[in-house]
């Protein structure tokens, strides 16, 4: 562990979720791929503990604290328009793997050339998604109508889910996923909006929900980008860049998407065993949610138009890419 800092071939990577999260598997596999593809010219090294809070992952790269990291796109809205479509409400009707690859391909087609992160001193290596988030409750009756939302204390993930609730005039507590546990441990809230099954097990506790309600399209796909310090990237010779690119992008997206889906299946079985009943969302409920959420989609399409991108075409491409897999 000597002075590993400035030697160009060592990339220090930060994983803000900590070493337990399934995302480590795919990212560390990428690390090995990179070392192999570049014949050891670039060696990613993963920090044992997180070095910056989740919203500040780009900041850490910009400051030179570490070289690679990934960030949740709820935190990049001010910096860039492009990846914001990933977290728009109700865009994905497929799996995490489908969404993840479609997100990368669609972003790559419409936005990679826009270099939106150039000012932030980062080069984007991949975009990826986790499986979609849904509705859970500790009450005896599943959440399946607007009335149900009003009849219990709710926690909604900050961002898309919280904004949708606000647009419906529904009172709730909001915050980052890591703070969900505080409210579920002693059932200060009963309803949870904006978490995956895996998120329930990781944060809320497996015995918390009695019912889960699953909309046909998820209210939000947690979307991320994996990136590297731009100076470090620019300093590499062209062939090394190419070697790294060949093992990044869709390859990362597919791998992490699949790991997310696999983990979701395990979580599904464990939740069923713990007594949680799964329900399909009532179409009327889903329609009401979509209607309340549509302003967020319109606002993003308007922002995309300002940088010369047809937002509707982006969403259609994403949809097509999901369906095509």
């Amino acid at each position, binding site marked *: *562990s000597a002075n590993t800092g400035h030697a160009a071939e060592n990339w220090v990577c930060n994983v803000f979720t900590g070493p337990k999260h399934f995302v480590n598997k795919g990212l560390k596999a990428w690390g090995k791929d990179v070392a192999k593809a570049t014949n050891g010219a670039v060696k990613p090294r993963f920090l044992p503990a997180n070095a910056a809070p989740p919203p500040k992952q780009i900041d850490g790269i910009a400051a030179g*604290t570490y070289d690679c990291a990934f960030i949740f796109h709820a935190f990049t809205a001010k910096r860039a328009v492009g990846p914001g479509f990933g977290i728009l409400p109700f865009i994905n009707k497929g799996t995490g793997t489908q969404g993840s690859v479609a997100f990368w391909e669609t972003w790559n087609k419409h936005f990679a050339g826009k270099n939106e992160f150039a000012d932030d001193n980062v080069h984007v290596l991949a975009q990826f998604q986790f499986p979609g988030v849904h509705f859970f409750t500790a009450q005896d009756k599943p959440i399946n109508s607007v009335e149900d939302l009003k009849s219990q204390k709710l926690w909604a993930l900050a961002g898309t889910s919280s904004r949708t609730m606000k647009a419906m005039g529904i009172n709730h507590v909001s915050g980052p996923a890591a703070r969900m546990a505080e409210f579920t441990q002693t059932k*200060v809230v009963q309803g949870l909006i904006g978490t995956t099954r895996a998120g329930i097990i990781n944060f809320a506790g497996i015995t918390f929900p009695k019912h889960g309600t699953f909309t046909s399209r998820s209210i939000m796909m947690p979307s991320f980008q994996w990136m590297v310090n731009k100076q470090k990237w620019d300093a590499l010779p062209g062939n090394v860049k190419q070697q790294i690119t060949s093992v990044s992008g869709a390859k990362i997206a597919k791998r992490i998407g699949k790991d997310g889906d696999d983990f979701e299946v395990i979580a599904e079985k464990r939740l069923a065993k713990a007594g949680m009943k799964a329900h399909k969302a009532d179409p009327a409920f889903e329609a009401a949610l979509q209607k309340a959420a549509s302003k967020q989609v319109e606002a993003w399409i308007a922002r995309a138009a300002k940088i010369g991108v047809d937002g509707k075409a982006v969403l259609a491409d994403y949809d097509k890419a999901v369906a095509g897999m």
Partner: protein
Amino acid sequence: MFESLVGFAAILGLSFLGIPLAFATLAVGFVGFWYIRGDINGAIILSGQEIFDFATLFGLSVIPLFILMGTLIQRANISDELYEAGYAWVGKYRGGLAMATVLSCAGFSAVSGSSLATAATMSRVAMPPMRKYKYMDSLASGTLAAGGTLGIMIPPSVPMIIYGIVTETNIGTLFIAGVVPGILLTLSYLAAIYVRVSFNPELGPPGEAVDWAEKRRTLGKTWPIIVLFGLVLGGIYLGVFTPTEAGAVGCVGAFIFALSRGRMWSIKENIEVFSDAVIVSARIFIIGGAALIFGQFLNFAGLSSELVDFTDSFELGPWGLPLMICAICVILGMIFESIGILLLIIPVFLPSLEGVAELSGLDPDMYLIWFGIVVIIVVELGLITPPIGINVFTVKSVIPDVDLSKIFVGVIPFVIADLVILGLIFLIPALAIGLPSIMPSF
């Protein structure tokens, strides 16, 4: 490993020279990070970020609030009444005033989440009577430093909240789990005093006997403590508020008690009391922020992964591994205070612990609760062990004319008592997790 050890040695050396602990830690963490990363700008931003983020971390909002709650209790004279009650019941025995100190520390702990605040408050309350009865400084001050550590085992407890956040375990359950070990620690401290004065009666001469009516009267006066304890724990347990919100609710309760006793009516007194809690908190925060910078140096230097590889290489299993981690934490506890250990060390070992949890025969969640109680005892040890024992320094600063080495000598019996209880909780995990297991959940 080598760079990390140099870092530890440098903090020790600099702080021994009288450089404020926070600034010594900051300097070593900064230089260390700069050396490892080879980039001073990264070190400058990272250091600013760690201090700023630490000072604005939501989970830590309980620190000033649980300190304020204690200060309000003190203003309402409830801490004096606690001591009176303790004195009435055990004062007449040899070492009785020290025992009364332990009991009143335990009572105060039920409304304070900080060991530092408990030690500081009870030093002001209990030292004068112990001086009056010619208690030796080593017994008197040692009792106060150790008694203060009860503040974080008996709920509410700031370190338990931090442990709960770091490990994603249920903080309400942790609080309940702390009750029995807290009582055991209190009893073991009483025993430690008893044994010491048996060998050397001059350490703590007996006080005057008190009649039964007085005993009942003084005990009856401690009811506000029970009410506040019930408010805080009951509110958490019934799902009215979260453990981090409990500090604010407890403060409002304590404030009302103070008002009812004619205190806190003047603006001047409010400013005194609130800014007192602010000052005590600031000292903790600046050390904590600096410790996190040093922690990032250890993170980047690879110490944490080396430690994990080292402990994993023994394949110790569900009881050996925690023992090993405890040993490491006891050593680190000589230098770090509680937050440093909880934020720097525990997350590193968490994956290994979760790996062996299934093998323990306990429910994996309960296993982490049990380990949390174990860690709190280890943290308590760190607060009173030399060379850097924050509680010892706190007692020293309230009672400046006591020799620091005498306090460190005075805490030795309590360190032994801590170790005995730690051993017991290893042998009988039910002492920690029995109560939460049988509590009904809502």
